[in-house]
């Protein structure tokens, strides 16, 4: 280098935009933000979680690539959105979920969940949740069969249900669970225990990752950290998760005050199930959520309250998935109710 330093001063008028965020850059960062969750899941559940996450991710990316090509369009896998869908779907499934079902779920997520509506930017629902909703309705037993965390031989052997033959029933794993469990694990998540057996689990250990559950929903602290990274990079709107979590806490507190013996406290509700994962990574899907700040608050609170209503009053133990899908369905309506008002203009008719 010579000693000459050149300073370029650019004179421009506003707006002083620099480094615009592109879609694939945001999507890539969402994938980065989910990788710690995937790693934690593999550490907790071992090989089965690894092949499950690999299967759903590869399944979604391949399905998107093949279907785009079959339609005569350019493949859109390079925008990373199919990878996000696959990874998210894997994180919401139980770790020992049969791989053929996971592959089917990936196909449903991408084909009717996303490409049928016109691909990224046009999907009405979060594709990963469409896939999961299909799997829950089609295979209700397999999707509620949970395996213990930190089993001793988890890096040496698979959960027996992982390699189920396509179209076949997964083998019963009660015996296998009683062999590998470290403590008094019964194969049920804290929510199921609370709802059907009235056994309360302490919230704080759950927040630090000590409980059963779907492969990616367990480490509460890690989910919040990863979400904070995306918020910090301006790649995710903080309003939706905050609104959803506070809506859930408020609703749970109301129920708890009414009947403390029957309805658990808000902290328990916050740290169990998929609420943190759903609020952070699924409700914030930029395509299927409202665009105005006020709309985001309404949308988030609505989903949080719905989650608690389903958990406390519904037949299912977990309500996050249905709440988010309902929220997705309502978000165009919320957008119509909350149009942004130009400075000085009157409030549009029908807006709130």
């Amino acid at each position: 280098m010579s000693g000459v330093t050149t300073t370029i001063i650019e004179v421009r008028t506003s707006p002083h935009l620099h480094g615009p965020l592109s879609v694939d850059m945001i999507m890539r960062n969402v994938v980065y933000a989910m990788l710690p969750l995937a790693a934690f899941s593999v550490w907790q559940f071992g090989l089965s979680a690894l092949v499950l996450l690999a299967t759903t991710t590869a399944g979604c990316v391949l399905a998107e690539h093949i279907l785009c090509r079959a339609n005569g369009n350019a493949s859109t896998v390079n925008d990373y959105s199919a990878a996000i869908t696959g990874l998210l779907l894997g994180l919401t499934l139980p770790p020992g979920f049969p791989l053929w079902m996971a592959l089917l779920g990936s196909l449903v997520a991408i084909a009717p969940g996303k490409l049928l509506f016109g691909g990224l930017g046009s999907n009405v629902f979060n594709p990963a949740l469409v896939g999961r909703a299909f799997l829950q309705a089609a295979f209700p037993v397999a999707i509620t069969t949970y395996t213990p965390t930190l089993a001793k031989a988890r890096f040496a052997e698979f959960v027996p249900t992982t390699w189920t033959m396509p179209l076949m029933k997964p083998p019963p794993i009660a015996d296998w669970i009683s062999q590998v469990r470290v403590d008094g694990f019964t194969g049920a998540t804290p929510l199921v225990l609370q709802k059907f057996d009235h056994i309360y689990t302490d919230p704080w250990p759950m927040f630090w990752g000590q409980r059963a559950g779907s492969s990616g929903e367990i480490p509460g602290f890690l989910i919040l950290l990863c979400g904070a990274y995306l918020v910090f990079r301006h790649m995710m709107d903080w309003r939706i998760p905050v609104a959803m979590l506070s809506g859930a806490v408020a609703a749970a507190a109301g129920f708890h005050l009414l009947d403390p013996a029957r309805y658990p406290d808000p902290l328990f509700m916050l740290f169990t199930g998929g609420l943190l994962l759903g609020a952070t990574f699924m409700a914030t899907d930029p395509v299927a959520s409202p665009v105005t700040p006020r709309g985001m608050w309404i949308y988030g609170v609505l989903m949080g309250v719905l989650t608690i209503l389903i958990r406390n009053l519904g037949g299912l133990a977990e309500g996050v998935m249905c709440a988010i899908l309902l929220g997705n369905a309502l978000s165009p309506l919320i957008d119509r109710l909350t149009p942004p008002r130009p400075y000085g203009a009157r409030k549009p008719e029908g807006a709130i």
Partner: protein
Amino acid sequence: MSTTTTPPNPFLNGLWRQNPTFVQILGMCPTLAITNSVRNAIAMGLATAFVLVISNGLIAAIRKHVPKQVRIATYIAIIATAVTVTDYLVKAISIPVYKALGPFIPLIVANCLVLERAEAFAAKKPVIPSMMDGAGMGLGFAFGLTCLGTVREVLGAGTFLSIPLFGPNFEPWVLFLLPPGGFISLAIWLLVFATFRERKQRQLQAGLTEIQPAEVRS
């Protein structure tokens, strides 16, 4: 131009070109509600076909004597008669099928396909073509129901006409026996038939210049 083309055969018209399920999308209530097994689907399709043949024939026979103002009420009375006959027939033939179909046999009277054929075809045409049309439409409907029933029974229970296909370890896709499964399998079949039609139209446009006029519906 199109003046030289012959009118479409009424029987084949209903069976394929104007198929009630996949082209006209009529009679969706029984299509979605009772197609969770092939047996129910076939029974329902045949019952509807029977009603269509009788009602189309009777309505065509009296078409010149019915005042225009009360024609719908007259058609409904005739259709209801045919449905009552069918109801007793099904009960006489097979009690299990009768129980499985439940209220959907009496509800054939409300099937828009039956009234649509009476109004669009039997009210204007002689008896024999009307009965042919009824048979074609009815069998086309039965064909549509059987297509749906096949998907739903094979995936939802692993059987076809109660014969196991995949052995005892098959994991049933419960979804396909539930109402959403009806919508999903209908969507799959509509996709398949729409693809067929589009391909055929493209071939027609590429090769032939002759245009077949579609039947005019009132």
